């Protein structure tokens, strides 16, 4: 599935909810179903800076696509990562680099997009794009 298609799917799912509470409850559910990062990968160098809660993000290349795994000690943050992993994992580096993130606004999580927000959604996206850029550079070389 392309990044755009997954984003559309998410917008669809979130449009079923009438209020923020249902959206958050769904996000929390998504967080609980997040495939966890390997315990031994929860090292300091995998930590994303700029989050009030701890967020570990790991990436690996498999058949030309990047696989992201992640975890957090806060459940709402975990929900946010689950959404991002669903959108950006198992995609080609160039596709990740080209992707925009307008869908976050559309699923009603705009408040998490502020760069000063302590949950670091912006930092997470930036880190994912950084990995993509690094892999993309490797491919070219």
């Amino acid at each position, binding site marked *: 599935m392309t990044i755009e298609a997954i984003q559309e799917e998410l917008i669809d799912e979130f449009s079923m909810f009438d209020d923020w509470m249902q959206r958050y409850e769904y996000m929390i559910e998504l967080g609980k179903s997040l495939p966890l990062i390997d315990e031994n990968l929860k090292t300091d160098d995998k930590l994303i800076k700029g989050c009030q*809660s701890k967020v570990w993000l790991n990436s690996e290349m498999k058949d030309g696509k990047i696989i992201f795994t992640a975890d957090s000690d806060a*459940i709402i943050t975990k929900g946010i990562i689950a959404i991002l992993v669903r959108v950006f994992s198992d995609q080609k580096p160039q596709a990740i680099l080209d992707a925009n993130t307008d869908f976050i606004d559309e699923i009603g999580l705009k408040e998490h997009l502020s760069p000063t927000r302590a949950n670091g959604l912006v930092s997470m996206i930036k880190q994912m794009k950084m990995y993509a850029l690094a892999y993309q550079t490797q491919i070219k070389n």
Partner: protein
Amino acid sequence: MSFDVQKIRNDFPILSRKVNGYPLVYLDNAATSQKPQQVIDSIVDYYSNYNANIHRGVHTLSQEATDAYEAARKKIQTHFNAKEAHEIIFTAGTTHGINLVANGFSEILKKGDEIIVSAMEHHSNIVPWQMLCEKTGAILKVIPMNEEGVLIFSEYEKLLSEKTKLVFVNHISNALGTINPIEKIIEKAHRVGAAVLIDGAQSCSHIKPDLQKLKVDFYVTSAHKMCGPTGMGILYMKEAWGNKLPPYQGGGEMIAEVSFEKTTYAGLPHKFEAGTPNICGGIAFGAAIDYLNAIGFEAIEKHENELLKYATEKLLEIEGLKIYGTGPDKTSVVSFNIEGIHPYDIGTIVDKLGIAVRTGHHCAQPIMDFYKIPGTVRASFAFYNTLEEVDALAKAVKKAKLMLS
């Protein structure tokens, strides 16, 4: 004057706004206080009617501005019962005041001298002393605290010796609300000849310290925690220290005479007030002090103690909730966690319900390390908060718990 919280709330325009569709419940007062109309008016009045640079103009506006600014200093002196108005140095806030003192001591301390700080300090209270120790070769000692979040006094006494040159403790802990026994701390320090700097950032909105009675050497606080503006604070220093410490920054206002051969410094307080000061901030700080005194600190303390007692009871009804900072002397701060739930998650959900609390380590990581937690949720109450707002908080926390577990 009887204490009428509804009438007081009418003075604060921000308290009638809505957040995320709910009436704002502002419980982040330990971070900053809201401002009453009287303080806002004093700012508007200054810029509308007598904005001018101070201390050197002969024209009417400059004189009016100078008079208002110096009247504010006098008001602050009276409020804190300092002996002289020139012992009140205007600063940009508590951190600025601490750095000013730390800078002064860099000329006084020698290798092997000791500075004592407490285990419950804010980061801004730890870093300047670490920098000072690196620069001078002095050694930093830490007063430990117990599980209740109370300093262990006997350990403090053990740390004191003739090597101790400076003791630095906050009056009230921002993360826990513990009120430290500063009177006893100061007295013991003076017995070994050490100077004492007290950080009053968290205390001055709740209690009115009497600086002469405390015999403290230095006391710092910020206006914005006391219904005043940001970017404004004071450093009180005993006159003898004011004469002893070197100037902090060079510039206008702080000089008596300047030539390329030699500059002589102005007397107190101007020696430490280089450059055009925050004139409006000083005047508005004065207005804030007038406002607080009109309500009265006795009434403020009484109401806040009620809020604290009620909030503690209500929150402890929630299963799995633990409060950090449970000493006998504390101010209206409740720092808590719910077992198995990250404080950040609780903060996010209660914000959606219009309630402003602080989550995280509150710039006091050593305290969090002590309790082995990533942070807490902190509700901090002011005199304009109500018992109904405590109910709203308890309800929101319950809802958050339900959603998150």
